């Protein structure tokens, strides 16, 4: 046995995050760790990685009891972790990011460092330049850097906390190929994901947590998808992609010749009432810049923008965009979505100030009531509306973002990767919300890298390639193959 956890318990103020959890990992085994948002997965792997100390319980590694007091100890003992929240240095190069914490000599040869890093990247088919600055990368490229970093360590155990949440399908396949190689070398891997199909593809064993409690574990092949969902959620989920919106003829949103620097060129589209409009594209296609430009966060130009029959010449500031009824669920909850030092209620009312304010004075009773409702509505797992969002689990943070953006009842809403990192139950809830929004007459624009949800949910899909609109798919044309073809620049 490579790693054995016994009765691990961990308390945070007001939360029992882990309650007597067990887990066993063998050499060359891929062990999936499953659970709803806030179930305690990240907490458990942080205990293995020396970030947190368990309040109770024992950890055996290679047969010996261990008790790491810092991440550096765990790393030096051959346990590498890819954390859920990317831990990168924005102002350093990719090469430097890969090697921080793992430099042996006091002197650094920069060229050598870049060369070595590039080797690792190329070996794993990561299409990233080692000398570029991390802040110039997009989210999926950053995720790949974090993966490369853990691979550079030559560890005996690699822990991956939602490594696939923000990378493309192609990259996921590539990652799985790497994982299989590692497996063959006898390396043990703990793998966390909210995508069950991935678990069936790569994992040998699975352990499920619910509300910090150990629910069960076993060989993956002994479970069906429904079994696992049942174990995680405690109930059955009937429909993975609910869809009941009705498209009307009326156009609620239309834009002509949108240009955003060199990233988006002459893109035009319109969204009808009741419609769910998708935007898809590969990494670097510019699909996430479209919302940011229209929202007034990036300098953008257009020939004509009409919302609900009203022409809008220019949007200089997100504040203006909100006034026009445009809302945005941003791509990165940590850097763009939340003020992590503030609690749930403050984050929610920050964007919905008009609901709780008069003459600049806040009415906390209303605010707290709203927050409580939202927590219930999205089943956000929190001790109370006063919990700091920085202390929420990743998926629950995402739910807060969605909640605060949609609360304002926008006319047009851009949802960029809204289901990133949220569990199956919550995903279904988001899809329900998207349906309801559309039916209420709002324009819904769904930007996602996850093709299954695009295909199942959207009525029409605009596919981007290198900043250009490659075509808008409709009805039966919306298939994964067609989207991928357009996204790689192939006409259909």
């Amino acid at each position: 046995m490579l790693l054995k956890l016994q009765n691990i318990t961990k308390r945070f103020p007001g939360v029992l995050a882990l309650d007597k959890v067990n887990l066993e990992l063998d050499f060359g085994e891929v062990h999936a760790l499953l659970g709803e948002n806030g179930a305690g997965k990240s907490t458990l792997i942080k205990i293995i990685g020396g970030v947190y100390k368990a309040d109770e319980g024992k950890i055996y590694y290679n047969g010996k009891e261990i008790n790491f007091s810092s991440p550096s100890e765990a790393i030096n003992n051959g346990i590498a972790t890819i954390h859920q929240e990317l831990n990168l240095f924005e102002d350093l190069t990719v090469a430097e990011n890969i090697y921080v914490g793992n430099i042996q000599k006091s002197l650094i040869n920069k060229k050598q460092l870049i060369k070595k890093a590039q080797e690792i990247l190329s070996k794993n088919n990561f299409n990233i330049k080692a000398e570029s600055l991390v802040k110039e990368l997009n989210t999926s490229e950053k995720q790949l850097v974090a993966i490369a970093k853990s691979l550079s360590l030559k560890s005996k155990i690699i822990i991956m906390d939602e490594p696939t949440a923000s990378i493309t399908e192609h990259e996921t396949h590539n990652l799985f190929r790497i994982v299989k190689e590692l497996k063959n070398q006898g390396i043990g891997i703990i793998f966390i994901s909210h995508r069950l199909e991935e678990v069936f593809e790569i994992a040998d064993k699975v352990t499920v947590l619910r509300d910090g409690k150990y629910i069960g574990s076993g060989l993956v092949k002994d479970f069906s998808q429904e079994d696992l969902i049942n174990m995680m959620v405690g109930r059955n989920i009937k429909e993975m992609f609910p869809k009941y919106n009705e498209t009307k003829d009326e156009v609620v949103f239309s834009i002509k010749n949108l240009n955003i620097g060199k990233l988006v060129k002459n893109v035009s589209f319109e969204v009808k009432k009741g419609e769910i409009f998708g935007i898809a594209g590969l990494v670097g296609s510019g699909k996430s810049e479209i919302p940011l430009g229209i929202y007034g966060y990036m300098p953008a130009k257009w020939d004509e923008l009409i919302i609900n029959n009203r022409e809008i010449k220019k949007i200089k500031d997100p504040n203006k965009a909100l006034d026009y009824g445009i809302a945005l669920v941003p791509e990165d909850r940590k850097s763009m979505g939340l003020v992590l030092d503030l609690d749930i209620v403050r984050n929610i009312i920050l964007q919905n100030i008009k609901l709780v304010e008069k003459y600049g004075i806040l009415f906390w009773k209303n605010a707290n009531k709203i927050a409580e409702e939202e927590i219930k509505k999205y089943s956000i797992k929190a001790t109370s509306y006063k919990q700091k969002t920085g202390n929420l689990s990743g998926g629950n943070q995402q739910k807060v973002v969605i909640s605060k953006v949609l609360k304002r009842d926008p006319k047009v809403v851009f949802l960029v990767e809204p289901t990133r990192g949220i569990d199956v139950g919550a995903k279904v809830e988001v899809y329900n919300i998207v349906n309801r929004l559309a039916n209420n007459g709002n324009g819904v624009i769904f930007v996602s890298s996850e093709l299954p949800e695009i295909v199942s949910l959207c009525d029409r899909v605009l596919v981007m390639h290198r900043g250009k609109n490659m075509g808008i798919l409709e009805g039966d044309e919306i298939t994964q193959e067609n989207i991928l073809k357009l996204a790689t620049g192939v006409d259909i």
Partner: protein
Amino acid sequence: MDKKIILKKMKEYPAIVGFIGISILFSILSDRFLTVSNIINVFRQVSIQAVMAFGMTMVIISGGIDLSVGSIFALSAVIMASVLKTGSVFLGIVIALVVGALMGFVNGFIIAKGRIQPFIVTLATMAIGRSLTLVYTQGMPITGFPSTFRIIGRGYLFGMPYPILIMLGTFALIWFISSNTKLGLYTYAIGGNETAAKLSGVKVVKYKIIIYMISGVLSAVSAMLLTARLNSAQPTFGTGYELDAIAAVVLGGASLSGGKGSVVGTIFGALIMGIINNGLNLLNVSPFYQQAVKGIVILIAVLLERED
């Protein structure tokens, strides 16, 4: 029950722990320390720094810093003083506040619109404000004000000196602003994550300007207190106050990286600094050693704060 609330408050505002710890220390060491007259004395002394530190609290919560407070203090004091000499007390006070607001506006405008680091902008306006003060006064102090004005410095209301009342008033105001208004929420949001604040629809430029204006106005209020107490406005007024004010805020638990802090913490931070000065004098610690003792006591205070 009550005990629990107190314990909770202590956890929330660790500066209270430092304050109580040091108070106990000095009470043991000097029997003069814990007398009503000395306590009122300390509070009155602290009032000037505290008022300025309240404004600084807002600035620091918003992720900024204001080095120009001392110069704003001086400039508004001397301009007010010259108006007071003409006999118009009300006008003098109003003009002082206007000067503070204007200087704050300049700070906020350059910082927010020009997107330049607050440190360097307020370093520059600190120098400029000092110069304007010297030019305005030609380096001479301005002295002798109407007695109605001097009451602010030495008068009492219900047995409480005016400076303490004014301090408590501004405290209540800033506390209310930071915890119960849109402006307060936005201040925390801007300091916590400016991008997220912007994407949530906060007009960052506007609110930054307002925040620096508050700091400017409170520097002017603070200047009014000292001018009334000393019955004189000096061109050298306020030199080095920026460090004192920042220290009070940081001792009060705020973080210079923004998003965290509270005036409740700041008032105790200012009180800690005040009682240290007072206690060292009462104990007749030699001036050469005073700073060392002060440094050590500050370290003790922050360590006490951390304990909890």
